[in-house]
């Protein structure tokens, strides 16, 4: 989903002055893209809702620090993706993810004609996040690596593994393209 949300400068200025109506207008402008971003990165809808709330609390607290450099959506999106990645890290600490993207681990139980959304759900949250941030939101591997606190090669590797997994899940062919073709 490509988002191009223009927000009038006067609205931002009012929000920075603490005007509650202006802050709500910003919330209304960005609630769907923020939730969508979080929901695409995270497996549980309730986690995405929490990220939405945490993101706007941060926006409300920090809007004065926004200097108008770049689109406001870019600034809000950065906060949202950071919150979502923090949640992924926290969940990883609490429990090992049950659905990791080991080749064939759960693919055996997945039909060949599942749609893309279902296929995305089969990915680990880390893989989902990398795919979404890179392929849809347009983040570079360098930006993803910085936000995740990982290396650029980690981001590239996660993306490749995720696409290999999506390919297997979606494709009619039973080829494993994660490595070399036969």
């Amino acid at each position, binding site marked *: *989903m*490509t988002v191009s949300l223009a927000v009038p400068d006067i609205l931002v200025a009012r929000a920075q002055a*603490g005007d*509650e109506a202006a*802050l*709500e207008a910003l*919330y*209304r402008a960005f*609630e*769907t*893209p923020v*939730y*969508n971003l979080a*929901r*695409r990165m995270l497996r549980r*809808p309730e986690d*995405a*809702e*929490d990220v*939405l*709330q*945490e993101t*706007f*609390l941060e926006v*409300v*607290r920090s809007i004065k620090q926004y200097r108008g450099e770049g689109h406001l959506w870019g600034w809000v999106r950065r906060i949202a993706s950071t919150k979502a990645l923090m949640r992924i890290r926290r969940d990883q600490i609490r429990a090992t993810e049950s659905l990791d993207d080991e080749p064939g681990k759960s693919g055996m139980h997945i039909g060949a004609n599942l749609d*893309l*959304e279902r296929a*995305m759900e089969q990915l680990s949250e880390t893989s989902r996040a990398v*795919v*979404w941030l890179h*392929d*849809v939101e347009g983040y570079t591997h360098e930006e993803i690596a910085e936000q995740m606190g990982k290396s650029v090669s980690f981001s*590239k*590797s996660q*993306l*490749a*593994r995720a*696409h*290999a997994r*999506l*390919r297997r899940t*979606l*494709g009619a062919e039973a080829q494993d*393209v*994660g*490595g*070399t*073709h036969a």
Partner: protein
Amino acid sequence: MMHCTMEDLGALRAGEASVWARRHVTTCATCQQELELLYQRVAQLKALPSLRPPRDRWPAVRAIMQGERSRKRRTWGAWTGSLAAAAGLAAILLLQPSTGQHGQLHAELNQAKQQSATLEDSLKQYDIDGCVLSGHAAAVVADLEDRISAIDGTLAQQTVDVEDGEAGDAALVKLWQERVGLMRELMNARATRARYVGL
């Protein structure tokens, strides 16, 4: 025959592929097809419908925001109001003998102020600003903080009145006791939430 890996295909898409991969894909129909599938998958990802939040989270955000604003006001009020009230009252009581009704009021006032200070200290351990609150919980906390702020403001005014001889010490004691009651409710609300979030 070696084919492109998914990393090779990703690099081809980004224009960062090795010389070998760039040459190979021009001659290998399988890899050309895989590259095309990759492009299609990314296009499909971008075309996925936008997901809307199932519930409106603005009321919760607003309640927390208002709570934080009133807490800021209360902090100032506590410094300019409560401390001024305490200082003013202490000055009055020091000038008067602590016997009879005055002595009893003095004792009650000290007790209320001590309880209030203890509760303030205890509340610090439940500072949950960074946590998600439900709209209802946030509204309860914000309401209690607003009422405490209002009492702090009244306390400041009451002290001025006492110094002017327009109100009795009993009113101050009542206000401080009311403040302690609200602080206890706030403490319970925060402690419950802190247990819930595992702090």
